[in-house]
């Protein structure tokens, strides 16, 4: 059976939340790619088509000067800037993004399949519910990072997104 390709854009993937990946591998269903920052996330999206993309909200810019510029203009540090949200807007709703970054070479599957995107973040849902609505991301595509979250949290989120994707495909969407 072909494995589901997952991109996880998360700067703490190898440190704080590495435990979440175990269930993905032991399920035998997923191929996981990690990007530690916004620049690398965009690079990965341009290079491959993913079935699921999970984005952390607070991520560093990486090496791309365009993302660094967003941080510099916001006058906060790179973790406070919520670049993950900016990345999602830039990909899914570029007209709504405040700090515009013109992304070129973004493959069609991104705009055609917004249902593939999900958010795993420390933010409270109340703090970003408006953004999720504007991005067209349903409640099921969001999970909050907490200290006592189960080790299957990432797997559960991915599986919900896959189900949404299947629903959307079968509905002819």
């Amino acid at each position, binding site marked *: 059976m072909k494995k589901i390709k997952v991109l996880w854009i998360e700067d703490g993937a190898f*440190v704080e939340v590495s*435990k979440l990946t*175990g*269930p993905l*591998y032991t399920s*035998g269903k997923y191929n*996981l790619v990690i990007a530690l920052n916004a620049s690398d996330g965009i690079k990965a999206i341009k290079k491959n088509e993913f079935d699921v993309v999970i984005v952390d909200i607070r991520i560093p810019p990486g*090496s791309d000067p365009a993302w660094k510029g967003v941080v510099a203009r916001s006058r906060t*540090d790179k973790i406070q800037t919520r670049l993950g949200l900016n990345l999602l807007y830039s990909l899914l709703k570029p007209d709504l993004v405040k700090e515009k970054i013109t992304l070129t070479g973004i493959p069609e599957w991104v705009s055609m399949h917004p249902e593939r995107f999900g958010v795993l973040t420390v933010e409270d849902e109340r703090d970003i519910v408006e953004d999720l609505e504007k991005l067209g991301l349903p409640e099921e595509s969001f999970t909050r990072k907490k200290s006592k979250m189960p080790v299957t949290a990432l797997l559960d989120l991915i599986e919900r997104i896959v189900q949404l994707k299947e629903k959307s495909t079968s509905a002819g969407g």
Partner: protein
Amino acid sequence: MDKKYLLRSFAKNFNLNKLPIGAYIVTKEGEFIECNTEARKILKLPSSGEIKANIKDFYSDPSERDKILKKIEDNENDGFSPGKIVINFNVKNSEKRVQTHCRFIRDPDSNEIIGVFGCLVDVTWEMIFSELFEFLPVGVYLLDENDKIIRVNDAFVKILGYKSKSELEGENVSTIYENPDYAPVFRNRLINKKAVINDKVELKKKSGEPIFVSVNSYKIPGKGQSYKGRRGTIVDVTAEENYRRLLSSIPVGTYMVDNENKIIDCNESFAKMFDYDDIKSVRGEFVLDLYDDPYKDYDNFMKELKKKHDEGANPLVGYNLKFKSKKGRTFVAEVNTRLLVDKEGKSYGRAGAVRDISGEVALRDLRDDIGKTLHTYSSNLIMLQHSLVPLVEVIGPDPFDKKTFLEIEDAISALDDPAKHLEKSLARILEISTTSTEMFNALSVDNWDVLHIQRDLLTNYEEQIPYPEFIISALTDSAKKIIAVCKSFEKGLPREMEKDLKRKAKELGRICSLITYHQALDAIQEMEFEVRALREYVIFRQRASEKLEICRIESLVSISIHNLSGLAKYRNVEIKQSHKTSGIKVKVEERSLIRALSHLFFNAIKYSLRRGDEEQRWIIIRSYIEDTDINNRWVCVEVENYGVPITKEEIDKELIFQFGYRGDYSGNRRKVGTGIGLMDTREVARKLGGDVVVSSHPADDGAKEDDYDQPFLTKAVLKLPVKPNHGVQNEKN
């Protein structure tokens, strides 16, 4: 005909005494023929009778008369009136300025000049005032009823930066106002009052530059006290006004108090600080009413102030007092004040500046609280560390050395055998299940699927999981799943096989747990250092400067290394050293410099990587003297490591020195810092006149400078200047 006779006839016919001004007739040579009463008064001549005098004798400069006569003659020849002339006269040893208007008297027959007819007006005072007007250093002006500038003096022209009076006379005065709309406002004030005294007005120079002047202006009344214009003076007070505004705007209250403790004056900041509406309402207030506890504080304060004064008229600086504002709000302020004394040395009050430091006091208290909290964190980390030890003892024998950091590669290779054994055990069961229906029925189809997936994973997990950090969690989960499936085994599976599978799965899980334990220990070690460094930074950096002490640079380096030797050993990092600063001493705050060096060494240890097949990581600490030019000599402590890159941008833009900054590439090497170290180190260095310089280049020669997916050689150098009496000295000096 006799000339004098002709002149006397002229005088008689003319009736000089009818003229309201002084008038006289003299011969061409200057002999008086006739003088009217007014002229006699001016020249102090006898009030009647013949005048035996010559007008030349009244000239302060006799040659001037000839010049005047020549001028009259020339004017007459040109058909012009000779005009009024002001002449300096000496009248009975008293200088007078007289204005005269002269005409020749000619013989009617020959047209020969036989005499001079002159008018005289004593303009001595007018001239004095006119000169005063011109030469006063104060700008003087005269405006008409429509605000047109009639006359100004040289000082007025100069104050406003013009070159001549003609540029101003005739212009409307609003053209020199910074805000022209204010000109009619000022005018209207004078229409209602007689004068405006010492008013500050903002004007504008010819260049457009604003200027503040103090204006005195007096109404020129017309009929029935109507407004006919004004006259007055301006003085440039720009410097004073700027200073006053500066004093008002600075967030420091300035004040003056007399010996009865009454406030004589203050600035706006003072009034605001004490919740007064304005400066006016502060004047005359009793300053002790502003003390929170005058009985406790005032006497001590005055004692200290007098002591400082007696030491040499010194001010009392940095004295903290608790005050209470007019609205009852209490706050702590830093007072800097000095006694005011007269020429005889008698005190007539005091003056000073007061600064609200409540925020700083609160910050200091907060800092102390944070320090205590961090101290608690330190203790908690140690407790956590100790709590993990019995846990590990329960897990079973630990193949890993507790004294050193567990490298990820070593952790993964320790999983090889248990993973292989588990896989073999699993493979046997799966094989039999395909040939024995009884075996197959021992588990559900889903559970067999799970076991197949785990076997697949265990066979080539290093291929399937490209990220080493995830292998441990994957194998942990795999072992858990296998154990869970084992619980579901129904009859049909040989007992020994089941037991073997469980045992192997538990062993894999045990090794994974031990790896997690070591990773936790490592994280605790690092956190402990970071928390201690943060506590040092928060508490000691902000304290009043420590005493400067003379220390050997070698000794400071040695203490810093010793502080980190445990961590270095744990992390299997060899500290290589090379020192060429024997005998060099520095005058520094010892604790701060040790902290600064420790940050550099800690970063080097933390971000170092294993090089190729080498067992140990390493850092090199060097100290040496560097001469950058003939005038600049530095003592340098340098640390170099092989490890995580720092990008060119991070160095060029000094991002790495920003508070809380985490390096671009520090995260993907699984190491995250607090972002304080380099910032603190540089602050300490700069306080001593030195600096920190960082460089980072690919370790492999020929590798691309901007390829950050490779190890870099990074150097951080703390430099201190070698200057006489500055701090760095050679022991031999």
